[in-house]
C-alpha cells in the first residue's frame, strides 16, 4: 500500500471534489437510474438472504440464552435494538461494500486503464459528474433503503424463531418490538446507512480513479476498496454508536 497519509489526503480531496460536483450541472439522471437499478435490484437477493439468516441466527442465540433466565419475553425488545441500531446497518454496509464497492472500483479502474476516462474527458465530459456523482447519489438512496429491507427481513426472521422455537406469542413479539421503535433507535438506524453510503462511494470511486498498473492494478485497487470500505463501515459504526448515541440518548 502507498503511504497512508498520502492515500488519506488523496481520498479527502477526492471526496471534496465529488461533493462539489454533485451541485454543478449537468446531472446525469439516466446514469443514476442505471445505478439504482443495477445496484439496488442486484443487491436485493443478497440483502434478503443476509437479513433472513442473520436475523434467525441472532434470535436463536438470544432465545436460548434468555430462556435460561426465564427472560425470553425480552426477545422482541432485544431484536428491535440490536437489528435496527447495529446489525441491520452494519450487515447492509458490509454487503454493499463487498458487492457494490468492488463493482464500482473495478469498472472505473478498467475504464482508466483503457484510456476511456481520458476519452470521456476529451469529449468535454467530466468523469466526476458523469461517473462519481450518480454512484454517490445512488448509494445515498440505496444504502438506507436496503438497510430498511434488511431490518424488516431480519425482524421477520426473529419472529420465525420467536413463534416456532421460543414459543412466544406473535402479538407479544411484535408489540414488544414496536415498543422499542423510538426516535433515538430509528435515528441511529437511519443515520448509519446514510453515513456508510458516503464512505463506500468515496472509497470505491477514489480507488478506481487512482488505480495504476493495468489489470493487476485494477485487481489490487478492487481488493483494497472492499477491505478499506468494510473496515471503515465497522469503525464508523462504532463511533456513531459511541458518540451519537451518547449525545442523543438523553432526549429519547
Amino acid at each position, binding site marked *: 500500500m502507498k503511504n497512508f497519509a498520502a492515500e488519506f489526503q488523496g481520498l479527502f480531496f477526492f471526496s471534496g471534489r465529488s461533493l462539489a460536483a454533485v451541485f454543478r450541472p449537468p446531472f446525469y439522471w439516466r446514469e443514476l437510474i442505471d445505478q439504482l437499478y443495477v445496484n439496488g435490484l442486484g443487491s436485493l437477493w443478497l440483502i434478503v438472504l443476509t437479513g433472513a439468516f442473520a436475523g434467525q441466527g441472532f434470535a436463536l442465540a438470544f432465545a436460548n440464552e434468555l430462556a435460561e433466565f426465564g427472560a425470553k419475553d425480552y426477545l422482541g425488545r432485544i431484536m428491535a435494538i440490536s437489528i435496527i441500531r447495529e446489525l441491520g446497518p452494519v450487515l447492509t454496509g458490509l454487503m454493499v461494500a463487498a458487492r457494490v464497492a468492488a463493482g464500482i472500483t473495478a469498472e472505473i479502474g478498467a475504464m482508466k486503464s*483503457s484510456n*476511456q476516462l*481520458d*476519452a470521456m474527458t*476529451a469529449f*468535454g465530459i467530466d468523469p466526476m459528474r458523469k461517473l462519481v456523482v450518480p454512484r454517490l447519489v445512488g448509494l445515498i438512496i440505496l444504502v438506507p433503503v436496503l438497510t430498511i429491507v434488511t431490518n424488516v427481513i431480519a425482524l421477520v426472521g426473529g419472529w420465525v424463531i420467536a413463534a416456532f422455537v421460543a414459543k412466544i406469542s406473535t402479538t407479544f413479539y411484535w408489540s414488544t418490538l414496536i415498543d422499542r421503535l423510538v426516535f433515538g433507535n430509528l435515528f441511529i438506524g437511519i443515520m448509519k446507512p446514510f453515513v456508510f453510503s458516503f464512505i463506500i462511494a468515496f472509497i470505491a470511486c477514489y480507488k478506481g480513479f487512482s488505480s495504476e498498473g493495468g489489470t493487476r492494478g485494477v485487481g489490487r485497487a478492487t481488493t483494497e476498496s472492499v477491505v478499506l470500505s468494510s473496515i471503515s463501515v465497522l469503525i464508523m459504526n462504532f463511533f456513531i454508536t459511541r458518540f451519537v448515541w451518547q449525545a442523543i440518548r438523553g432526549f429519547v
Partner: protein
Amino acid sequence: MIELRNVTFGYDERVILEDISFTIGESESAIIMGPSGSGKSTILRLLLGLNYPQRGDVLIDGMNLNQISDRDLEEVRKSIGMVFQDGALFDSLTVGENVGYYLFEHTKQSTEEIETAVREMLGFVGLDADQVVDQLPEQLSGGMQRRVAIARALLATNPKIMLYDEPTTGLDPQATDLILRLVNKLTEEKGISTIVVTHQISDAFFLADRFLVIFGGRLIFDGTIAELRDSDQPQVRAFLAPYRQSLELVESKGFRPAQQ
C-alpha cells in the same frame, strides 16, 4: 488555432518534451513524426488539457489552457475531435452509442436523428452499419475498432480541431486510403486544423505539407516535405534514413491521391 509556447513536459522527474514551440493555423494540417516513445501522443494530450506542461503554455484559439476555468476547458475540448492511439472506445457501450456519443451527450437531437447520423458515419468509414451498430467494440476486429474510433471523433457537431493519433496503423490499404481521404475531406471542407501523428511517410505525404519531427524530446524539424527531404541537419537525416526509399517512391508519383 493551436499554439505551443516553449512547452516542457515530463512524467515525474523524466523529461519527455523540452522547449517545444509551434503554431498551426486554421484549416492547416500538420504531421507529427518521431520515433516511438518520443512524446507525440503526449503532445496531443497536452492539447486536450489531459496533461499540463511544467513550463510553457498551450493555447487553443488564443485561450491558455493553464489559465481558463474548468467550464471553458470543457468547451475547448468539445471543439476538438480526438482519435486515441488505442481507440479508447467505451467498451460497455455499443458501437452505435460510441459513435453517437458526442451527439447523445451534447445535443438535444432525438435518438432517431442520432441513429441516422451514426449509420451514415459508419458507412462513411466503410463499416456495414446494420451489422455493427448494435455490437460491442470487443466483437469487432482491431481495424474495425479503429474505424469506429475515427467515426466517433468525426461525428461531433462542429470540431474546429482534429487530432489523430496513428489513425491508419494496423489498417489494410483500402481502409487506410478511405480514412486518409476522409481526414483530408474534413480538413478541406470544414476548415479544421488537423494534426496527424503517424509513422507512415506515405500517409504523411498524402495528408499535409507541414511536418513536425520530434526527436530526443525536442522539435528538430518544422517545415515542408521538400525541406525535410533536403535538410542537412544530421538529426533529421538520421531520423529520415529508414524512410528514404518510401519517400522517394511516394514523391515519384508526384501527386497527393486525395486530389485525384
